[in-house]
């Protein structure tokens, strides 16, 4: 039963119970308590459902992306080192030849 349904049952039974004689009055009052107990059990449900909407990315996927980036950075560093050497030589040669 939903929270609203439980609240409605409680309201209906409360007005009914006051018109009854024993033993029915006791049984109805206890039914009210049963619904109230169920309501208390649902007190964190909304919060849980809201938080369930948070869906962070898979951590292993992020780790994989980090690993790939680090590897790519290393590869580029090696390539750029070679490029730097080439540029320096070219600069020296061109300046000398001016």
């Amino acid at each position: 039963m939903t929270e609203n349904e439980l609240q409605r049952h409680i309201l209906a039974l409360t007005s009914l119970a006051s018109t009854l004689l024993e033993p029915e009055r006791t049984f109805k009052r206890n039914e009210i308590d049963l619904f109230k107990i169920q309501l208390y059990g649902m007190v964190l449900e909304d919060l849980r459902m809201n938080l369930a909407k948070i869906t962070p990315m898979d951590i292993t996927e992020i780790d994989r992306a980090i690993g790939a980036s680090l590897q790519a950075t290393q590869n580029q560093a090696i390539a750029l080192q070679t490029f730097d050497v080439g540029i320096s030589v070219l600069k020296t040669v061109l300046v000398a030849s001016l």
Partner: protein
Amino acid sequence: MTYYKLFLLALVFVISGCATPLEVKQLSLKQLDYLTVLTDAVTIQSEGLILIAEKLKQQSEGNMSCHQQNSIDRLNQLMTTTVDLTDMSERRALKQKILAQATEINKVTAASRQKLALDFKAIKIKTQQLQVYLKKIKEVQVVLNGYIQSQKAGEQLLSSSVGHTSVDGFLGTINTYIPLIKLASGELAHLLQVKQ
């Protein structure tokens, strides 16, 4: 020939000059600070959430026990009145109904306590997941910083990440928010300490 060499020299200097702009490097380092502030704020907020959820759980458990006891007390009281019934079958039927309802009360209370405990556990797990996720985001930024701080990252990163060529104004705007977030986090932390 000289013009050609001059052109080549100019080209070499242009290529050599394609280093990461200083503002981008500053921004990438600042991003790590922003993420740290964000992580701290979310941690405080999550702790607050767990604290409130825990208090709600305790209060609800107390209320459940109260209602359960009241119901059982009423049934005990009703049981004592069965001796007044002269009709044996009527007495038996009433006793059975009393026992059935007592069983149901205990069963429903146990199930409701379990639901409350499971919901609380799920809330804790989700907040922990969020913490782990934020830590990972910081790790991603550290890796990006490593690249951005290097010499030849290029100006393309500047325009693609912030949409314009200068980040001075952008950096200034972000910096105005940092003290506000820190103040709000501090106030929340103080409030939680008082409540405890």
